[in-house]
Protein backbone atom coordinates (compact mmCIF):
# COMPACT_ATOMS: atom_id res chain seq x y z
CA UNK A 1 0.00 0.00 0.00
CA UNK A 2 2.66 2.49 1.10
CA UNK A 3 4.78 1.45 -1.85
CA UNK A 4 1.85 1.97 -4.19
CA UNK A 5 1.19 5.44 -2.77
CA UNK A 6 4.86 6.33 -3.14
CA UNK A 7 4.83 5.07 -6.72
CA UNK A 8 1.94 7.32 -7.80
CA UNK A 9 2.92 10.41 -5.80
CA UNK A 10 5.30 11.84 -8.42
CA UNK A 11 2.60 11.93 -11.08
CA UNK A 12 0.15 13.48 -8.60
CA UNK A 13 2.68 16.10 -7.60
CA UNK A 14 3.46 17.04 -11.16
CA UNK A 15 -0.30 17.43 -11.64
CA UNK A 16 -0.45 19.54 -8.49
CA UNK A 17 2.28 21.81 -9.91
CA UNK A 18 0.06 22.62 -12.88
CA UNK A 19 -2.86 23.29 -10.54
CA UNK A 20 -0.69 25.68 -8.53
CA UNK A 21 0.56 27.39 -11.68
CA UNK A 22 -2.96 28.03 -12.89
CA UNK A 23 -3.94 29.26 -9.44
CA UNK A 24 -0.92 31.56 -9.26
CA UNK A 25 -1.20 33.18 -12.68
CA UNK A 26 -4.95 33.56 -12.49
CA UNK A 27 -4.66 35.27 -9.11
CA UNK A 28 -1.80 37.55 -10.10
CA UNK A 29 -3.44 38.75 -13.31
CA UNK A 30 -7.16 38.69 -12.52
CA UNK A 31 -6.99 40.55 -9.20
CA UNK A 32 -5.57 43.80 -10.63
CA UNK A 33 -7.67 43.34 -13.77
CA UNK A 34 -10.74 42.91 -11.60
CA UNK A 35 -9.85 46.06 -9.68
CA UNK A 36 -9.68 48.08 -12.90
CA UNK A 37 -12.94 46.62 -14.15
CA UNK A 38 -14.45 47.35 -10.73
CA UNK A 39 -13.51 51.01 -11.10
CA UNK A 40 -14.85 50.94 -14.65
CA UNK A 41 -18.20 49.63 -13.41
CA UNK A 42 -18.48 52.79 -11.30
CA UNK A 43 -17.34 55.07 -14.12
CA UNK A 44 -19.44 57.95 -15.31
CA UNK A 45 -18.66 57.04 -18.91
CA UNK A 46 -21.84 55.29 -20.02
CA UNK A 47 -20.28 53.31 -22.87
CA UNK A 48 -17.42 51.96 -20.78
CA UNK A 49 -19.81 51.06 -18.00
CA UNK A 50 -22.17 49.35 -20.44
CA UNK A 51 -19.43 47.28 -22.04
CA UNK A 52 -18.05 46.17 -18.68
CA UNK A 53 -21.49 45.33 -17.35
CA UNK A 54 -22.11 43.19 -20.41
CA UNK A 55 -18.79 41.42 -19.88
CA UNK A 56 -19.57 40.67 -16.23
CA UNK A 57 -23.07 39.52 -17.12
CA UNK A 58 -21.88 37.11 -19.82
CA UNK A 59 -19.03 35.67 -17.80
CA UNK A 60 -20.94 35.24 -14.57
CA UNK A 61 -23.99 33.96 -16.39
CA UNK A 62 -22.30 31.09 -18.21
CA UNK A 63 -20.36 28.10 -16.84
CA UNK A 64 -16.60 28.33 -16.64
CA UNK A 65 -16.54 24.92 -18.25
CA UNK A 66 -18.33 26.33 -21.31
CA UNK A 67 -15.88 29.23 -21.44
CA UNK A 68 -12.93 26.82 -21.39
CA UNK A 69 -14.39 24.67 -24.14
CA UNK A 70 -15.35 27.77 -26.13
CA UNK A 71 -11.83 29.17 -26.06
CA UNK A 72 -9.98 25.92 -26.71
CA UNK A 73 -12.34 23.99 -29.01
CA UNK A 74 -14.64 26.73 -30.25
CA UNK A 75 -12.37 29.60 -31.26
CA UNK A 76 -10.20 27.48 -33.62
CA UNK A 77 -13.27 27.06 -35.84
CA UNK A 78 -13.00 30.80 -36.57
CA UNK A 79 -9.25 30.65 -36.90
CA UNK A 80 -8.20 31.69 -33.38
CA UNK A 81 -6.02 28.98 -31.90
CA UNK A 82 -4.51 28.92 -28.42
CA UNK A 83 -2.33 26.16 -27.01
CA UNK A 84 -3.98 24.22 -24.14
CA UNK A 85 -2.20 25.89 -21.26
CA UNK A 86 -2.68 29.42 -22.60
CA UNK A 87 -6.31 28.71 -23.39
CA UNK A 88 -6.85 27.58 -19.81
CA UNK A 89 -5.16 30.67 -18.38
CA UNK A 90 -7.14 33.03 -20.61
CA UNK A 91 -10.42 31.40 -19.62
CA UNK A 92 -9.60 31.49 -15.91
CA UNK A 93 -8.33 35.06 -15.94
CA UNK A 94 -11.33 36.38 -17.85
CA UNK A 95 -13.69 34.44 -15.59
CA UNK A 96 -12.17 35.36 -12.26
CA UNK A 97 -11.60 38.99 -13.19
CA UNK A 98 -15.37 39.32 -13.64
CA UNK A 99 -16.07 37.97 -10.17
CA UNK A 100 -13.33 40.07 -8.60
CA UNK A 101 -14.65 43.16 -10.41
CA UNK A 102 -18.04 42.75 -8.78
CA UNK A 103 -16.42 42.27 -5.39
CA UNK A 104 -14.27 45.39 -5.81
CA UNK A 105 -17.22 47.41 -7.07
CA UNK A 106 -19.13 46.52 -3.92
CA UNK A 107 -16.12 47.36 -1.77
CA UNK A 108 -15.61 50.73 -3.42
CA UNK A 109 -19.28 51.60 -3.07
CA UNK A 110 -19.16 50.75 0.62
CA UNK A 111 -16.72 53.59 1.34
CA UNK A 112 -18.75 56.49 2.76
CA UNK A 113 -18.50 59.67 0.67
CA UNK A 114 -17.67 61.48 3.92
CA UNK A 115 -14.26 59.81 3.85
CA UNK A 116 -13.50 61.24 0.44
CA UNK A 117 -14.85 64.66 1.39
CA UNK A 118 -12.77 64.76 4.56
CA UNK A 119 -9.68 63.96 2.50
CA UNK A 120 -10.59 66.63 0.00
CA UNK A 121 -11.05 69.38 2.59
CA UNK A 122 -7.65 68.42 4.01
CA UNK A 123 -6.18 69.04 0.56
CA UNK A 124 -5.30 65.46 -0.36
CA UNK A 125 -5.15 64.73 -4.08
CA UNK A 126 -7.41 62.05 -5.55
CA UNK A 127 -4.44 59.68 -5.81
CA UNK A 128 -3.39 60.27 -2.22
CA UNK A 129 -6.97 59.67 -1.13
CA UNK A 130 -7.14 56.49 -3.17
CA UNK A 131 -3.88 55.17 -1.78
CA UNK A 132 -4.08 56.18 1.87
CA UNK A 133 -7.80 56.13 2.59
CA UNK A 134 -9.77 54.13 0.04
CA UNK A 135 -7.36 51.29 -0.72
CA UNK A 136 -6.91 50.06 2.87
CA UNK A 137 -10.62 50.29 3.60
CA UNK A 138 -11.66 48.51 0.40
CA UNK A 139 -9.03 45.85 1.01
CA UNK A 140 -10.50 45.07 4.41
CA UNK A 141 -14.05 44.95 3.06
CA UNK A 142 -13.30 42.66 0.11
CA UNK A 143 -10.86 40.33 1.82
CA UNK A 144 -13.37 37.64 2.93
CA UNK A 145 -15.06 37.52 -0.49
CA UNK A 146 -11.75 37.46 -2.34
CA UNK A 147 -10.61 34.65 -0.05
CA UNK A 148 -13.72 32.67 -0.91
CA UNK A 149 -13.10 33.07 -4.62
CA UNK A 150 -9.45 32.05 -4.26
CA UNK A 151 -10.46 28.83 -2.53
CA UNK A 152 -12.96 28.22 -5.31
CA UNK A 153 -10.19 28.82 -7.82
CA UNK A 154 -8.03 26.02 -6.37
CA UNK A 155 -10.89 23.60 -6.99
CA UNK A 156 -12.12 25.14 -10.24
CA UNK A 157 -8.68 24.62 -11.73
CA UNK A 158 -9.59 20.92 -12.01
CA UNK A 159 -11.88 21.88 -14.91
CA UNK A 160 -8.85 22.13 -17.18
CA UNK A 161 -8.93 18.33 -17.52
CA UNK A 162 -11.65 18.85 -20.14
CA UNK A 163 -9.16 20.43 -22.53
CA UNK A 164 -6.63 17.68 -21.88
CA UNK A 165 -4.29 19.40 -19.43
CA UNK A 166 -2.53 17.16 -16.93
CA UNK A 167 -3.54 18.73 -13.64
CA UNK A 168 -3.88 17.06 -10.25
CA UNK A 169 -7.36 15.63 -10.87
CA UNK A 170 -6.40 14.20 -14.23
CA UNK A 171 -3.28 12.56 -12.74
CA UNK A 172 -5.44 10.86 -10.12
CA UNK A 173 -8.07 9.87 -12.64
CA UNK A 174 -5.48 8.28 -14.91
CA UNK A 175 -3.98 6.29 -12.03
CA UNK A 176 -7.42 5.11 -10.86
CA UNK A 177 -8.38 3.91 -14.33
CA UNK A 178 -5.05 2.19 -14.86
CA UNK A 179 -4.74 0.47 -11.48
CA UNK A 180 -8.45 -0.01 -10.71
CA UNK A 181 -7.94 1.56 -7.27
CA UNK A 182 -9.69 4.22 -5.22
CA UNK A 183 -6.45 5.26 -3.57
CA UNK A 184 -5.32 7.80 -6.18
CA UNK A 185 -8.63 9.67 -5.99
CA UNK A 186 -8.48 9.76 -2.19
CA UNK A 187 -4.95 11.10 -2.43
CA UNK A 188 -6.11 13.75 -4.89
CA UNK A 189 -8.72 14.81 -2.35
CA UNK A 190 -6.06 14.98 0.35
CA UNK A 191 -3.80 17.15 -1.80
CA UNK A 192 -6.68 19.57 -2.58
CA UNK A 193 -7.50 19.72 1.11
CA UNK A 194 -3.87 20.46 1.94
CA UNK A 195 -3.75 23.27 -0.62
CA UNK A 196 -6.97 24.88 0.56
CA UNK A 197 -5.88 24.47 4.18
CA UNK A 198 -2.67 26.40 3.50
CA UNK A 199 -4.60 29.06 1.63
CA UNK A 200 -7.17 29.36 4.41
CA UNK A 201 -4.36 29.75 6.94
CA UNK A 202 -2.70 32.51 4.92
CA UNK A 203 -6.01 34.32 4.39
CA UNK A 204 -6.79 34.16 8.09
CA UNK A 205 -3.39 35.66 8.89
CA UNK A 206 -3.96 38.51 6.47
CA UNK A 207 -7.45 39.13 7.83
CA UNK A 208 -6.16 39.18 11.37
CA UNK A 209 -3.63 41.82 10.45
CA UNK A 210 -6.29 44.08 8.98
CA UNK A 211 -8.41 43.66 12.09
CA UNK A 212 -6.44 46.11 14.23
CA UNK A 213 -8.99 48.73 13.18
CA UNK A 214 -12.73 48.58 12.63
Amino acid at each position, binding site marked *: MINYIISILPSLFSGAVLTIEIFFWTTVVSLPLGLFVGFGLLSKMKILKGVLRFYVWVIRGTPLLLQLIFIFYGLPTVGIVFPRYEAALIAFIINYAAYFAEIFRGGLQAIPTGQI*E*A*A*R*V*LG*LSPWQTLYKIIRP*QVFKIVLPSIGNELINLVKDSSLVYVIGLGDLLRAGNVATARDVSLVPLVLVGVVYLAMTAILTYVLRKVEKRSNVWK
Partner: protein
Amino acid sequence: MSGNKVLELKDVNKSFGSKHVINNLSLSLNKGEILSIIGPSGAGKTTLMRIIAGLEKADSGHFFHYGQEFDPAMRENHLVGMVFQDYNLFPNLTVEQNITLAPIMVNKLDQKKAADLATQVMQQLEISGLAKSYPYQLSGGQKQRVAIARALLMKPEILCYDEPTSALDPSLVNKVKKIFFDLKKKGVTQIVITHDHDFGKAVADKILDVKAAGNFEK
Protein backbone atom coordinates in the same frame (compact mmCIF):
# COMPACT_ATOMS: atom_id res chain seq x y z
CA MET B 1 -14.03 96.32 -1.73
CA SER B 2 -13.12 95.77 1.89
CA GLY B 3 -9.66 94.30 2.00
CA ASN B 4 -9.62 93.43 5.68
CA LYS B 5 -12.24 90.69 5.56
CA VAL B 6 -10.90 87.18 5.82
CA LEU B 7 -13.99 85.95 4.02
CA GLU B 8 -16.60 87.76 2.03
CA LEU B 9 -19.49 86.23 0.11
CA LYS B 10 -21.41 88.22 -2.47
CA ASP B 11 -24.74 87.22 -4.00
CA VAL B 12 -24.30 83.51 -3.59
CA ASN B 13 -27.03 81.31 -5.05
CA LYS B 14 -27.55 77.61 -4.97
CA SER B 15 -30.46 75.44 -5.91
CA PHE B 16 -31.01 71.73 -6.22
CA GLY B 17 -33.38 71.20 -9.10
CA SER B 18 -36.23 73.62 -8.63
CA LYS B 19 -35.51 74.12 -4.93
CA HIS B 20 -33.70 77.34 -4.09
CA VAL B 21 -31.54 76.56 -1.10
CA ILE B 22 -29.45 79.72 -0.96
CA ASN B 23 -30.85 82.96 -2.35
CA ASN B 24 -28.56 85.92 -3.04
CA LEU B 25 -26.64 85.52 0.18
CA SER B 26 -23.93 88.00 1.10
CA LEU B 27 -21.92 88.02 4.29
CA SER B 28 -18.49 88.97 5.54
CA LEU B 29 -16.23 87.90 8.37
CA ASN B 30 -13.26 89.57 10.04
CA LYS B 31 -10.25 87.60 11.17
CA GLY B 32 -10.99 85.82 14.44
CA GLU B 33 -14.72 86.30 14.29
CA ILE B 34 -17.16 83.52 15.04
CA LEU B 35 -20.27 83.17 12.90
CA SER B 36 -23.15 80.99 14.08
CA ILE B 37 -25.56 79.72 11.48
CA ILE B 38 -28.82 78.74 13.12
CA GLY B 39 -32.15 77.61 11.81
CA PRO B 40 -34.32 74.61 11.00
CA SER B 41 -32.93 71.61 9.17
CA GLY B 42 -33.33 71.57 5.42
CA ALA B 43 -32.85 75.32 5.27
CA GLY B 44 -29.46 75.20 3.54
CA LYS B 45 -27.07 75.64 6.48
CA THR B 46 -24.96 72.65 5.63
CA THR B 47 -25.07 73.46 1.92
CA LEU B 48 -23.69 76.92 2.63
CA MET B 49 -20.89 75.45 4.70
CA ARG B 50 -20.12 72.85 2.04
CA ILE B 51 -19.87 75.62 -0.55
CA ILE B 52 -17.45 77.58 1.64
CA ALA B 53 -15.41 74.40 2.20
CA GLY B 54 -15.34 73.71 -1.54
CA LEU B 55 -17.35 70.49 -1.42
CA GLU B 56 -20.26 71.96 -3.34
CA LYS B 57 -20.25 74.50 -6.13
CA ALA B 58 -22.42 77.60 -5.92
CA ASP B 59 -24.58 78.29 -8.98
CA SER B 60 -23.47 81.90 -8.89
CA GLY B 61 -21.79 84.35 -6.56
CA HIS B 62 -18.36 85.68 -5.63
CA PHE B 63 -15.95 84.78 -2.85
CA PHE B 64 -13.24 87.07 -1.55
CA HIS B 65 -10.28 86.51 0.77
CA TYR B 66 -8.88 89.87 1.92
CA GLY B 67 -10.41 91.44 -1.15
CA GLN B 68 -8.97 88.86 -3.54
CA GLU B 69 -11.55 86.81 -5.37
CA PHE B 70 -10.99 83.07 -5.06
CA ASP B 71 -12.68 79.80 -5.93
CA PRO B 72 -13.43 77.72 -2.83
CA ALA B 73 -13.53 74.56 -4.93
CA MET B 74 -9.80 74.81 -5.71
CA ARG B 75 -8.05 72.24 -3.58
CA GLU B 76 -4.89 74.34 -3.41
CA ASN B 77 -6.50 77.10 -1.38
CA HIS B 78 -6.11 75.50 2.08
CA LEU B 79 -8.17 78.32 3.43
CA VAL B 80 -10.92 76.36 5.07
CA GLY B 81 -10.82 73.45 7.48
CA MET B 82 -13.88 71.47 8.36
CA VAL B 83 -15.12 69.43 11.29
CA PHE B 84 -17.88 67.21 9.96
CA GLN B 85 -21.00 66.36 11.91
CA ASP B 86 -20.02 62.69 12.05
CA TYR B 87 -16.32 63.63 12.14
CA ASN B 88 -15.31 61.42 9.17
CA LEU B 89 -12.12 60.29 10.85
CA PHE B 90 -10.18 57.76 8.78
CA PRO B 91 -10.89 54.43 10.51
CA ASN B 92 -7.78 52.75 9.11
CA LEU B 93 -5.42 55.27 10.68
CA THR B 94 -4.50 55.91 14.31
CA VAL B 95 -5.38 59.24 15.88
CA GLU B 96 -1.87 60.53 15.28
CA GLN B 97 -1.88 59.32 11.67
CA ASN B 98 -5.28 60.95 11.14
CA ILE B 99 -3.86 64.23 12.36
CA THR B 100 -0.50 64.10 10.57
CA LEU B 101 -1.60 62.60 7.24
CA ALA B 102 -2.38 65.85 5.45
CA PRO B 103 0.57 67.85 6.86
CA ILE B 104 2.90 65.09 5.67
CA MET B 105 1.29 64.37 2.31
CA VAL B 106 0.03 67.79 1.33
CA ASN B 107 2.38 70.22 3.09
CA LYS B 108 5.35 67.83 2.76
CA LEU B 109 6.28 68.20 6.41
CA ASP B 110 8.67 65.52 7.62
CA GLN B 111 7.24 62.86 9.91
CA LYS B 112 9.01 64.11 13.04
CA LYS B 113 7.93 67.69 12.63
CA ALA B 114 4.34 66.72 11.92
CA ALA B 115 4.30 64.44 14.97
CA ASP B 116 5.65 67.28 17.16
CA LEU B 117 2.96 69.62 15.92
CA ALA B 118 0.34 66.96 16.48
CA THR B 119 1.55 66.44 20.04
CA GLN B 120 1.19 70.15 20.76
CA VAL B 121 -2.32 70.37 19.37
CA MET B 122 -3.38 67.15 21.09
CA GLN B 123 -2.17 68.57 24.39
CA GLN B 124 -4.20 71.72 23.87
CA LEU B 125 -7.28 69.65 23.16
CA GLU B 126 -6.60 67.18 25.98
CA ILE B 127 -6.37 64.09 23.80
CA SER B 128 -2.64 63.40 24.24
CA GLY B 129 -3.19 59.88 25.50
CA LEU B 130 -5.03 58.83 22.38
CA ALA B 131 -2.25 59.13 19.79
CA LYS B 132 -2.00 55.41 19.13
CA SER B 133 -5.74 54.65 19.37
CA TYR B 134 -7.94 53.96 16.38
CA PRO B 135 -11.13 55.97 15.86
CA TYR B 136 -13.41 53.04 16.76
CA GLN B 137 -11.91 53.09 20.25
CA LEU B 138 -12.92 56.72 20.90
CA SER B 139 -16.02 58.32 22.37
CA GLY B 140 -17.98 60.92 20.40
CA GLY B 141 -16.36 63.84 22.22
CA GLN B 142 -12.88 62.42 21.68
CA LYS B 143 -13.57 61.85 17.98
CA GLN B 144 -14.66 65.44 17.66
CA ARG B 145 -11.49 66.78 19.22
CA VAL B 146 -9.42 64.54 16.94
CA ALA B 147 -11.35 65.97 14.00
CA ILE B 148 -10.62 69.51 15.25
CA ALA B 149 -6.95 68.66 15.72
CA ARG B 150 -6.81 67.17 12.23
CA ALA B 151 -8.26 70.32 10.72
CA LEU B 152 -6.06 72.63 12.82
CA LEU B 153 -2.79 71.04 11.75
CA MET B 154 -3.42 72.33 8.24
CA LYS B 155 -3.51 75.84 9.75
CA PRO B 156 -6.80 76.87 8.14
CA GLU B 157 -7.72 80.53 8.33
CA ILE B 158 -11.35 79.56 8.62
CA LEU B 159 -12.58 76.55 10.52
CA CYS B 160 -16.11 75.25 9.92
CA TYR B 161 -18.06 73.01 12.26
CA ASP B 162 -21.26 71.21 11.32
CA GLU B 163 -23.38 70.67 14.44
CA PRO B 164 -20.45 70.36 16.85
CA THR B 165 -22.60 69.94 19.95
CA SER B 166 -25.34 67.65 18.69
CA ALA B 167 -23.67 64.44 19.87
CA LEU B 168 -22.18 65.76 23.09
CA ASP B 169 -23.40 65.78 26.66
CA PRO B 170 -23.71 69.21 28.35
CA SER B 171 -20.40 69.03 30.22
CA LEU B 172 -18.57 68.53 26.95
CA VAL B 173 -20.38 71.45 25.36
CA ASN B 174 -18.52 73.79 27.72
CA LYS B 175 -15.24 72.24 26.64
CA VAL B 176 -16.15 72.91 23.03
CA LYS B 177 -16.91 76.55 23.91
CA LYS B 178 -13.48 76.81 25.46
CA ILE B 179 -11.90 75.43 22.30
CA PHE B 180 -13.79 78.03 20.26
CA PHE B 181 -12.58 80.90 22.42
CA ASP B 182 -8.97 79.59 22.51
CA LEU B 183 -8.90 79.40 18.73
CA LYS B 184 -10.49 82.81 18.45
CA LYS B 185 -7.63 84.25 20.52
CA LYS B 186 -5.24 82.66 18.04
CA GLY B 187 -7.00 84.49 15.22
CA VAL B 188 -8.79 81.53 13.67
CA THR B 189 -12.07 82.58 12.09
CA GLN B 190 -14.80 80.07 12.85
CA ILE B 191 -18.16 79.23 11.35
CA VAL B 192 -20.49 76.98 13.23
CA ILE B 193 -23.79 75.41 12.25
CA THR B 194 -25.91 74.60 15.24
CA HIS B 195 -29.42 73.67 16.35
CA ASP B 196 -28.47 74.77 19.83
CA HIS B 197 -29.42 78.46 19.94
CA ASP B 198 -27.91 79.01 23.39
CA PHE B 199 -24.61 77.62 22.25
CA GLY B 200 -24.77 79.50 18.97
CA LYS B 201 -25.45 82.80 20.72
CA ALA B 202 -22.89 82.21 23.45
CA VAL B 203 -19.97 81.80 21.05
CA ALA B 204 -21.01 84.02 18.16
CA ASP B 205 -19.88 87.47 17.11
CA LYS B 206 -22.36 87.25 14.26
CA ILE B 207 -25.45 85.17 13.81
CA LEU B 208 -26.95 84.10 10.52
CA ASP B 209 -30.53 82.99 11.08
CA VAL B 210 -31.93 80.78 8.40
CA LYS B 211 -35.70 80.99 8.63
CA ALA B 212 -36.77 78.78 5.80
CA ALA B 213 -35.25 77.39 2.66
CA GLY B 214 -33.43 80.06 0.75
CA ASN B 215 -34.21 82.83 3.18
CA PHE B 216 -31.13 83.93 5.05
CA GLU B 217 -31.36 86.77 7.58
CA LYS B 218 -28.55 88.34 9.44
